[in-house]
C-alpha cells in the first residue's frame, strides 16, 4: 500500500448541546487502552473484556469469510463453462455445501453481533462490559470449537448435502461427513444462544443513568431484536440437526418415508429456524446502517419510533413465514395461502426502514466517507433484494422461480449486498474506535465502489438466469445460459478484489495510520465520548445520558412529533 493516507477533512466541532459523558477529571491519570494493558497472548485468550473478545471474534470470522469466499471463487470459476470443466460434480457439490455452511453459520450469523455488537453495544449504553463477561468469553471458545469441528468435516472430509441438509438425501443417500458437520453447527448454536442471552440481559440491566429505552441507539434495538430471535429459534435448529444424526446413525425413521418418516416435517422444522435466521443476519446490519446514515448526514433519525418498532416487528413476524420456502414442496393449499400473505406482511417493516433512512438524508450535510458509501450501497442493494422477495411471496411466481438462480440472486442481494455491506460499513466506521487509527481514505472509498459495482455485475444476471429456469446447485448447465454465467463470474472477480483490498489498507493503518482521536466522525454516540482505543472499562466515569442518540442537528426547524 502506498503512503497516500490522508486525514479526513476537518469536521465541524461537536454540537454545542450538553455533553454526554463527563470529561475526565483534570489531572486524573488517563487509563491505558484495552489494546495495550494487560500484556501477552494469555491475557488475550483469557480476557473477559468485551472489546478484546470482539477482536478475537473478528479474527476468526474474517478467516471463515475468506474460506467461504474461496469456495465461492471455485464455484464461479467452474460455472464459466457450461460443462463445468474445473471441478468434478462431487467436488462441486461439496464446495457449494461448504460455501453455504461456512457463510451462514460462521460468518453472517455471528459477524455483526459478535464483532461490532460485542465491541460497541456495551459502550453505546454506557456500560463497562456485557452482563456476563465470562459467558462472553466462553461463547467464543464454544463458537471456535464448533467451527473447528464443522470446518474439519467440510474441508477435509467434505459434505455434499447442501447447507439445508434435506432428508432423505442427507440421511440415506449422502456418503459424506454429514453428522460431524451437524454436530459442529449444533455446538456453534450454543454460542449463539449465549451471545443472545448476554445481549438481552445487558440491555435490560446495564443501561447507564438516563439511558431510557427511547434513547437507545437503533443498533442496540436491532441487536436486542436479533438476540430474541437467537434465543427462540436456535434450539429448533439444534433439535432438527440432532434428529438428522439420529436417523443417519440409528436408522430410526423420522424423516425418511421408507422408514416411516416424513421429509416435509424436516422442512418445517428447518425453516422454522432458518427463516428467522435470515433476520438474525440482516437486523444487525440495519442497525449499523442507521448509525451510519445519521452520522454522515448529520441528521436526527427520521421516525425513531417507527424504526425501533420495525425491528421488533420483523423479529416477531419473522417467525410466521417459514412456509414460503415450501410452496412447491407439497404443503397444503391453505398453508401456502397463509404463508404467502404473511410474507407480504413482513415486507412492510423492512420497507419502513428504507423510507426512514432515505428521509433522514433529506436536508442533511452528507459526507461520502467509506462507511457512508457502504450504507448507501446497502440501502440500494437491500431494497432490490427485498423487492425481489415480493416476487417470491406471490405463489404463482414462486412456483416458477423456486430453486432457481432467481432465489440465489434474491438472497445474495440481501445477505451479501445488504449484510456484508453493512458489516464492512460498520467496520470502517468503528475501526478508528477499535484501533485508534485512521485508514486510507481513497483506498477505502475505492474498495466500497468496487464492491458495489462487482456485486451488481455478479448478481443481476442471476435474476435473468433464474427466470429463464436455470436451477440452483447445478455443476453444469445448458449452453444457452453461458453468457449470463460468464458475466456473473466476471462480476465476482471484481467483487473479490473489493473484498480483499480492505484487508490490506486496514492492516496498513494499524502501523502507519494517523491517530484517530476520540471522535473522528464527530458522531454523537456514547462510544465516541471516550478515548480511541477505549480504556479497559470504557469510560473514565459512568456517563449520564440526557438526550436521544442522534442529536446531530445544529439549528433550523424542529418538526418534532
Amino acid at each position, binding site marked *: 500500500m502506498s503512503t497516500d493516507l490522508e486525514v479526513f477533512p476537518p469536521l465541524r466541532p461537536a454540537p454545542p448541546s450538553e455533553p454526554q459523558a463527563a470529561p475526565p477529571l483534570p489531572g486524573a491519570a488517563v487509563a491505558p487502552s484495552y489494546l495495550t494493558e494487560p500484556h501477552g497472548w494469555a491475557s488475550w485468550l483469557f480476557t473477559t473484556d468485551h472489546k478484546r473478545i470482539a477482536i478475537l471474534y473478528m479474527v476468526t470470522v474474517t478467516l471463515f469469510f475468506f474460506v467461504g469466499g474461496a469456495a465461492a471463487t471455485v464455484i464461479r470459476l467452474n460455472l464459466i463453462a457450461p460443462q463445468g470443466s474445473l471441478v468434478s*460434480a462431487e467436488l462441486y457439490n461439496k464446495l457449494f455445501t461448504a460455501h453455504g455452511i461456512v457463510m451462514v453459520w460462521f460468518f453472517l450469523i455471528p459477524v455483526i453481533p459478535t464483532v461490532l455488537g460485542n465491541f460497541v453495544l456495551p459502550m453505546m449504553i454506557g456500560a463497562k462490559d456485557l452482563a456476563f463477561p465470562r459467558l462472553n468469553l466462553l461463547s467464543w471458545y464454544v463458537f471456535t470449537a464448533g467451527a473447528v469441528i464443522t470446518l474439519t468435516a467440510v474441508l477435509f472430509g467434505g459434505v455434499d448435502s447442501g447447507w439445508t441438509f434435506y432428508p432423505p438425501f442427507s440421511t440415506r443417500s449422502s456418503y459424506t461427513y454429514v453428522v460431524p458437520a451437524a454436530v459442529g453447527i449444533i455446538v456453534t448454536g450454543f454460542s449463539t444462544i449465549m451471545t443472545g442471552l448476554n445481549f438481552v440481559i445487558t440491555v435490560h440491566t446495564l443501561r447507564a443513568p438516563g439511558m431510557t429505552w427511547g434513547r437507545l441507539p437503533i443498533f442496540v434495538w436491532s441487536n436486542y431484536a436479533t438476540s430474541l430471535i437467537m434465543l427462540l429459534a436456535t434450539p429448533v435448529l439444534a433439535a432438527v440437526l440432532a434428529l438428522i444424526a439420529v436417523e443417519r446413525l440409528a436408522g430410526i425413521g423420522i424423516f425418511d418415508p*421408507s422408514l416411516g418418516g416424513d421429509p*416435509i416435517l424436516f422442512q418445517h422444522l428447518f425453516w422454522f429456524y432458518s427463516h428467522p435466521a435470515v433476520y438474525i443476519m440482516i437486523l444487525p446490519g440495519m442497525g449499523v446502517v442507521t448509525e451510519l446514515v445519521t452520522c454522515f448526514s448529520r441528521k436526527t433519525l427520521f421516525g425513531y419510533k417507527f424504526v425501533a418498532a420495525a425491528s421488533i416487528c420483523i423479529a416477531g413476524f419473522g417467525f410466521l413465514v417459514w412456509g414460503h420456502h415450501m410452496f412447491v414442496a407439497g404443503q397444503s393449499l391453505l398453508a401456502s395461502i397463509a404463508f404467502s400473505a404473511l410474507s407480504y406482511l413482513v415486507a412492510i417493516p423492512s420497507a419502513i426502514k428504507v423510507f426512514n433512512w432515505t428521509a433522514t438524508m433529506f436536508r442533511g450535510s452528507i459526507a*461520502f466517507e467509506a462507511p457512508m458509501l457502504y450504507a448507501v450501497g446497502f440501502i440500494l442493494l437491500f431494497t432490490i433484494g427485498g423487492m425481489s422477495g*415480493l416476487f417470491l411471496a406471490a405463489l*404463482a411466481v414462486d412456483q416458477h422461480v423456486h430453486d432457481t438462480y432467481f432465489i440465489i440472486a434474491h438472497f445474495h442481494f440481501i445477505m451479501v449486498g445488504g449484510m456484508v455491506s453493512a458489516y464492512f460499513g460498520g467496520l470502517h466506521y468503528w475501526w478508528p474506535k477499535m484501533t485508534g487509527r485512521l485508514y486510507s481514505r481513497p483506498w477505502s472509498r475505492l474498495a466500497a465502489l468496487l464492491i458495489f459495482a462487482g456485486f451488481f455485475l455478479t448478481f443481476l444476471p442471476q435474476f435473468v438466469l433464474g427466470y429463464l429456469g436455470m436451477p440452483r446447485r447445478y455443476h453444469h448447465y445448458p449452453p444457452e445460459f453461458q453468457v449470463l454465467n460468464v458475466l456473473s463470474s466476471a462480476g465476482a472477480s471484481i467483487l473479490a478484489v473489493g473484498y480483499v483490498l480492505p484487508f490490506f489498507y486496514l492492516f496498513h493503518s494499524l502501523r502507519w495510520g494517523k491517530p484517530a482521536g476520540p471522535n473522528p466522525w464527530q458522531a454523537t454516540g456514547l462510544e465516541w465520548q471516550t478515548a480511541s482505543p477505549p480504556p479497559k472499562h470504557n469510560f473514565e466515569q459512568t456517563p449520564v445520558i440526557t438526550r436521544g442518540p442522534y442529536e446531530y442537528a445544529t439549528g433550523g426547524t424542529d418538526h418534532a412529533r
Partner: protein
Amino acid sequence: MDLFAAIGMPEVPLFPDQASAHAGRVDRLFFFILAVTGGMGASVGLLLAVFAFRYRRRTAADRTPRITGFPLLEWGWTLGPILPFAVMFAWGLAVYRDNYAPPPDAYEVFVVGKQWMWKVQHPGGQREINELHLPAGRPVKVTLISEDVIHDFGTPAFRKKVDVLPGRYVTVWYEPTAPGRYRLFCNQYCGTGHADMVGAIVVQRPDEHSKWLRDHAEGSAALEGRKLFLKLQCVSCHRTDGDAKAPVLEGLYGRRVLLRDGSTTEADAAYIRDSILYPAKQVAAPWEPVMPTFQGQVSEEEVLLLVAYVRSLGRGDLPRPNNDTPPPIGAPTELPNAGGAKK
C-alpha cells in the same frame, strides 16, 4: 438477440419460452410486480441520488435541521404498501390455485424420479426416459413419485414445478399450447448427478402425438399390471368366486371405501399404493387385515402398473386364480378360502 449475433456470440435468450396458457398468466403477474417494485425502487433510488447530490457536504459548518419525524408521512408509507401487496398476493393465489383443479378429462401420465433419471409411463404402456411427449391443446395431468430422495419436476416453459417426494404421489397439470421441445430440469438437489437429471418436454401436434403413441405402444400399463397381478399372486385372494377373504377390486377406483375404523376414504392412486405397500395402514371393512405387504418386492414403477390395472377393472374383469405360480413371500401359506379354490 441481434446484438449478440453481431459480435459473433451464440444466441442468448433473456426470457423463457411460453408453452402453456398458464405461462402467460404467470408472466403477466411477473410484469405487474416488476412494474410496481420497479417504480418503488426507482423512486427510492432517485431520492437517494437527489439527496446525495443536493445535500452533499459543502463546508464543515453546514447547518442541518432537527427533523425527528412526520407522522402522517410515516403512517402513509407504513399502510400505503398494503394495497399493492394485497393485489400481488391475491393475483398470485388466483393463478396458482388452478394447480389444484386439473380438468377431469386430462390425459394422464405417470412419472417416477430416481437418482438420476426420470421414468415416464403413458397409460397406453409407452415408456420414456428423460423425455415426456405431450399433445398440444389437451390438458395433461402428471402423477409423480420418487424412488429414493426428493427431486423436483421443473418445467420452465410451463412456469410450473413440483417437488417429487418419496412415498407419496403428487400431481401437477399443464395445458401445453405451443408444439416444441422444452427443457426439463430437476430443481431439487438430489446428489452427484443432480445436474444430469434433465431432459425434454416434447409438445406435439395432436396427430403427431397419436402417431408417436402408436409407434411406441408396447401393451398398455393396465395390461402390464395384469401380468404382475398374476405373478404376485394377488389373484389368490382378490377373486370373484366363492367366499373370498379379500375385497373384489372391480369398480373400486374412485369409489369411497369404508374402513374398519369406521371412516371412509376415496380409493385413489395413493390409496391403492398404500394398500399394496402398507396394507395395515387402512384396512377395508369388513375384511381381516391379512393382506401381506409387498414393500421391497415391487418398485414404484411396478406399483404404478398395478394401480393402472386396478383402475381398469370393471365388472367381471378379474381373472380366475392361477395356482401354477407360488404365493408371494409373506403371504399366508394357506389360501384364504382353500377348498373352494377350483370351480
